[in-house]
């Protein structure tokens, strides 16, 4: 599979996601500089990694969303290509209008790096085919602004269309404000675009793929992507 990880000034989890993709698919992604205007030929998957692009000094992801490379990313998405935004990448996708809503300051007003439980809402997507709907996985989050918010109409549409792919739950998969640490609306941790080829999520499955450093619940996520691209 051919993937491209976009590097913005201030990105800092680009190495983590590239390593996870290489570990699981066997193919090293290409790193693409934000100031470039095109993606490497034949790119299947575009990844916007975690970090603090441009320091996240205005709003998270706001400046990166206007970077030169984003036009190519948008076109890739319009062609139906896979686009994945993790953490800062999710914020960038929202700011760029490729996904609806915004990520606000965590309800507890602190940066938090901790493990969370995610319920996988459906398995019939390019991102989750190696899981079953209802599976609960343990992956870390590391963000200060991951509190998903959108207007009622948008939320209703996302829910109605089944575009909420991940939710924060208890270890048993129950919705519970206690386990929704950042206070996201409807405990939303990750959402899909209408055509489901664009995904944004706050947690970091890329940090839970290697048994040496922790649980491996994030492997299925990258295995799903690899399987999707192999099938295509």
């Amino acid at each position, binding site marked *: 599979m051919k993937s491209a990880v976009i590097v913005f*000034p*201030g990105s*800092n*989890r680009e*190495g*983590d996601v590239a*390593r*996870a993709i290489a570990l699981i698919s066997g193919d090293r992604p290409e790193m693409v500089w934000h100031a470039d205007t095109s993606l490497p030929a034949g790119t299947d998957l575009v990844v916007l990694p*975690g*970090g*603090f692009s*441009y*320091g*996240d*000094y205005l709003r998270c992801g706001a400046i990166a969303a206007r970077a030169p490379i984003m036009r190519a990313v948008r076109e890739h998405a319009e062609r139906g290509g896979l686009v994945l935004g993790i953490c800062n990448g999710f914020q960038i996708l929202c700011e760029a209008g490729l996904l609806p809503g915004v990520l606000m300051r965590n309800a*507890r*007003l*602190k*940066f*938090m*790096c*901790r493990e969370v439980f995610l319920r996988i809402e459906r398995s019939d997507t390019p991102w989750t085919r190696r899981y079953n709907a209802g599976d609960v996985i343990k992956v*870390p989050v*590391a963000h*200060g602004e991951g509190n998903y918010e959108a207007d009622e109409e948008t939320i209703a549409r996302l829910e109605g269309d089944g575009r909420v792919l991940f939710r924060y739950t208890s270890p048993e998969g129950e919705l519970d404000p206690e386990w929704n640490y950042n206070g996201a609306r409807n405990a939303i941790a990750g959402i899909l675009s209408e055509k489901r080829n664009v995904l944004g999520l706050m947690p*970091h499955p*890329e*940090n839970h793929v*290697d048994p*040496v*450093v*922790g649980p491996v619940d994030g492997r299925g996520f990258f295995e799903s992507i690899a399987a999707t691209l192999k099938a295509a």
Partner: protein
Amino acid sequence: MLPNEPKITPELVAEHGLKPDEYERFRALIGREPSFTELGIVSAMWNEHCSYKSSKVHLRTLPTKAPWVIQGPGENAGVIDIGDGLACVFKMESHNHPSFIEPYQGAATGVGGILRDVFTMGARPIACLNALRFGSPDHPKTRRLVAGVVAGIGGYGNSFGVPTVGGAVGFHSRYDGNILVNAMAVGIAETDKIFYAAATGVGRPVVYLGSKTGRDGIHGATMASAEFGDDSEEKRPTVQVGDPFSEKLLLEACLEIMRKGCVIAIQDMGAAGLTCSAVEMGAKGDLGITLDLNAVPTREEGMSAYEMMLSESQERMLMVLKPEKEKEAEAIFRKWGLDFAIVGETTDSKRFLVRHGGDVMADLPIKELGDEAPEYRRPFAEPKKLPVLDPASIPSPLPIFAALEKLLGSPDLCSKRWVWQQYDHLILGNTVQRPGGDAAIVRIGDGPKALAMTTDVTPRYCEADPFEGGKQAVAEAWRNLTAVGARPLAVTDNLNFGNPERPEIMGQFVYCVRGIAEACRALDFPVVSGNVSLYNETNGRAILPTPTIGGVGLLDDLAKSVNPAFKKADEAILLVGEFGAWLGQSAWLATVFGREEGAPPPVDLAMEKRTGDLVRSLIGERLLTTVHDLSDGGLLVAIAEMAMASGIGAALDAPPPGFPSHAFWFGEDQARYVVTAAAADLPRIETAAAQAGVKLRHLGRTGGSQLTLPGENPILVSTLQARFESWLPEYMGSPA
């Protein structure tokens, strides 16, 4: 003639923190009245923070050599060989005063500064740690300081993109007016690509890189060496603001030009910015430096030479580049959006010449500026020895488990999750042992090697007996590294004390350093970098002597590391080391009685080594399933931590005859570990211990969901966990 406005008066000299005899020394050195800019320069070079004038003679007694030491103290950071062509580069530094005045920015810029020290040497930072000391929880400022400092450390490290993997947090009323923020950074470099500060070659361009210069922190270094009075909060505008985003770009740009072979010498601009960095580059290389300040990128208009020379704006570097690579280096810096300016050149004059607007503002002998700095053998008082407490003379007012609950719920021993959850401790994907264990473990590249790292000191001990306390801090760091299976390699230290002009304080300093030196020698654990922070006192009341030790060790195969969480039921719980009952200066005495009394536990370094070496070799043979070193709180706190980390309980045996129960369980005797092992492995372990001449004692068995002890009401592990986790969130008024 040098322009000389304003006129140098005794008042002005005093405002610059120079004593009259120091000023005379300087005047004699240059043979005339200095200019105002020169006064500023010398005040920066000769203050305590930069010149180490009170501590230098003592620091020279620290052992700094070992076959694996590539660079000891004296450069931006220490460097040790870790094999496979790789080196570990690390250092710790304080940002105490700025953090008290503006906790968020003070702590943030402290992290920024120490990261720069590490990547200046050509290393990519792989981890940060921090050791924090706050005032009493009841002090009205403490809560705000905790919130600000923790957010600042996180704010900088998280954005920069390096995991913060360990540290320590403590509270004591003696830090009410002077908190401690000690930040440590660890990086990895190739052994043949380490960069140093010494400039070489005449007529080479001196290049300024990074952010622009503003009026930040002018006199910051002087402030760090001044005692606080009640008006300290008036010294506000000297606060610097950190920009982790620029620092991240600076890191990438610096590593890129180093890779491309552009750099001859490099020095970050830390305390006293342009002054210290330029003088060091010249003096170390036996060269002169000429600076033209008109070329310095500034953020504000009308900055004077004095201001530019003393500005402590962050995220800046000074370099000497290979002339033929100048264009290439510039292109790299422009790509990262950073300032790049040629601000001077190297000369053979050995003078430090500063020009501004066509005038010569300073013209000083460069080597003498550093070498001739005053050096003091300050008088010191020998610390008084405290009596050894007889455990039998201190009755236990509480049942054992009630005292345990109290200890686990105390500010010093409670879980620091609330703190470290605000630090990204997972980024880069190499954190094998996360915060909460003995030492953090960070994988090197794709493994199997890994580095272990920790910070330790018990200020209570150092106050009661500086010599034993200094030894203990080193021994505990060594023990923490050993407890995860690592081979301890070297330390960085951060010596935080009060006013050295008072003989009692100087006595604390001298004896702590002696203790550190003795322990480092005995444990083959050299000091490769460090930092001294003096004058930590307010209105004549000093902090507890706090020589923080940052230790680094190596694991050849991280698959052979262990952690403190019980693994399963029905394993034997063993004490490696002697039974003990040392209650003097214990956490138990402090927490249960509110008394800090008696002599602290002595450290038998030979036994420390024997015991640690045994534990490490047993871990290497995979005979131990869990290991935890003993420190604050003693045996029972260690066992409780092992239970809480796993949710598995333990059935403990009664103490041996002759040991009062509370002293046995809460005594803080040194050189000890609690381990668990499978029954089948016990004979081999016992044989090895006997051969090593180390005592091995059975304490009980793992299993169940509670701790039990003959004659006491059992206690649920979940009850302990709740106590352990609740103090900090409740105190801070927000969930973790």
